[in-house]
């Protein structure tokens, strides 16, 4: 069966899409075709700590959509669902370093961690200060010495925004990296899929999901989740997500929360708002205050239907950094 996708040549998809990003957002960023990077027009800035991230493609707008002012200075794009290579991260690091050091925001997948590590070692050899922080906020995966650990998912978006704002106001390398770590420690995520997705290069859905069932505890690469369950109502699914996230995060009683209800790529905004209402009602009933929110598809898995919930326990400091101006293709306020 033919794929229902806009394609010329699957192998050229990532490059061709990045050309589009550059053309659509030429005021904010440029496309380095050789290294497959999106680089902020404002980078490098002397004395400002720079932030880079990257990962496989297919999660748009993550990460390229967050390159601009007040968030990322560069994003490295790998093939679909495949970590970029160290050459890309090294090139990005050199392109954005303004002398104050570079923070690498790395999602916890074996490939991403290994490739970023090789790049950080090479950057250090060339005299660039790099602090890498690995994000691992997905509560669906048990963390132990005997697994690859939890996956980095929704909290990555929040960390990029909050730490990006800190870099913008002039925080030093240790402080900016510390904020990424703080967000990772005070945020948890959990995802549900209602369909699989089809990577263009293989042309086949990653898994088969019969009607009336859902995958519970998914990541962002179309991989199956921890278990399969009968499809519940939005209310039941919200209950499941809130319970998973809150029981692990254990926010202080009455805490202020940033609630991020994320679409996986194939779920319409109307359903995301419905889910947000369900989630918010439960959090409020449990005595928490949803003081900030983000609802939309920001870290996706191609055309997968589904949603993930990320909850960040806010402090006054992180609230102010969240509110600070940001100007990127995918997040823009206060400018």
């Amino acid at each position, binding site marked *: 069966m033919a794929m229902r996708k806009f394609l010329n040549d699957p192998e050229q998809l990532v490059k061709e899409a990045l050309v589009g990003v550059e053309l659509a957002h030429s005021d904010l960023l440029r496309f380095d075709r050789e290294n497959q990077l999106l680089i902020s027009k404002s980078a490098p800035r002397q004395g400002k700590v720079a932030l880079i991230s990257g990962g*496989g493609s297919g999660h748009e707008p993550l990460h390229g959509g967050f390159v601009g002012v007040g968030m990322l200075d560069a994003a490295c794009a*790998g*093939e*679909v*669902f*495949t*970590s*970029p*290579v*160290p*050459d890309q991260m090294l090139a990005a690091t050199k392109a954005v370093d303004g002398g104050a050091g570079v923070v690498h925001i790395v999602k916890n*997948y*074996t*490939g991403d961690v*290994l*490739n970023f*590590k*090789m790049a950080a070692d090479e950057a250090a050899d060339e005299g660039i200060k790099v602090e890498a922080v690995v994000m691992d906020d997905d509560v*669906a*995966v*048990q963390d132990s010495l*005997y*697994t*690859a650990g939890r*996956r980095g998912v929704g909290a990555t978006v929040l960390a990029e925004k909050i730490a990006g704002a800190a870099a913008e106001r002039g925080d030093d390398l240790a402080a900016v990296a510390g904020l990424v770590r703080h967000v990772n420690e005070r945020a948890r995520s959990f995802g549900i899929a209602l369909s699989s997705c089809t*990577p263009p*290069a*293989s042309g*086949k859905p*990653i*898994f088969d999901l019969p009607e009336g069932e859902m995958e519970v505890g998914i*990541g962002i*690469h*179309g*991989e*199956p989740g*921890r*278990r399969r369950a009968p499809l519940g109502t939005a209310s039941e699914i919200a209950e499941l997500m809130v319970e998973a996230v809150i029981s692990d995060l254990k926010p202080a009683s009455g805490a202020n929360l940033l609630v991020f209800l994320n679409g996986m790529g194939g779920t319409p905004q109307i359903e995301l708002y419905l889910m947000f209402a369900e989630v918010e009602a439960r959090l409020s009933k449990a005595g928490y205050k949803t003081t900030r929110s983000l609802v939309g598809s920001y870290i996706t898995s191609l055309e997968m239907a589904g949603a993930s919930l990320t909850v960040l326990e806010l402090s006054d400091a992180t609230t102010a950094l969240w509110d600070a101006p940001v100007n990127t293709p995918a997040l823009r306020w206060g400018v």
Partner: protein
Amino acid sequence: MDAATITTWMNEIAGAVRAERDYLIQLDAAIGDGDHGINMTRGFDAVVRALAQEEDGTPGKLLTLAGKTLVSSVGGASGPLWGSALRRGGRALGDAPTFDDEKLVEALEAALASVVDLGAAVLGDKTMVDALQPAVTTLRREVDAGTVLPVSLRRAAEAAEVGMRATIPLQARKGRASYLGERSVGHQDPGATSTALIVRALERTVAGSQ
């Protein structure tokens, strides 16, 4: 064995992963994200192109170049793991224009050590180590016992395949399949599968030249 052995081996691997591309994709789709066949094909095709442009390298230099090419072209976990493995193997071969059985074993031992260092996986974690370690251990034992190399490599390739099949009942503890927990049980590991192809390609390379 000389530089041509390395080039032939890399060509053999490229042919094998291309032939098994869809099978590797299918294995990876079950417990990962389905790109292993695509990534390995892209990587070893790039290696073949890089080696074709290298006129007169030593075996060590060619193997190192192959490793660097994988690091720069594959991404994912396989890129750094196989890339570092071949680079370390290349360094173990040194600058000599030829290498003997003992040097070959040392290169593969260095490659295995690199994978274990970088990936922190041990036998039984349902990874490429489950195929590579038995292959290297077998090769060391056979070469020390004075078995002729084609036979030693045949036994090493068989050991890799036994290890590969032994991943089926295992629950993954490293890599992307580990996210599935118990659901990873019952599936053969794609990384162990491509590793068995790589060892089998070495056997064919040596058998064909002797």
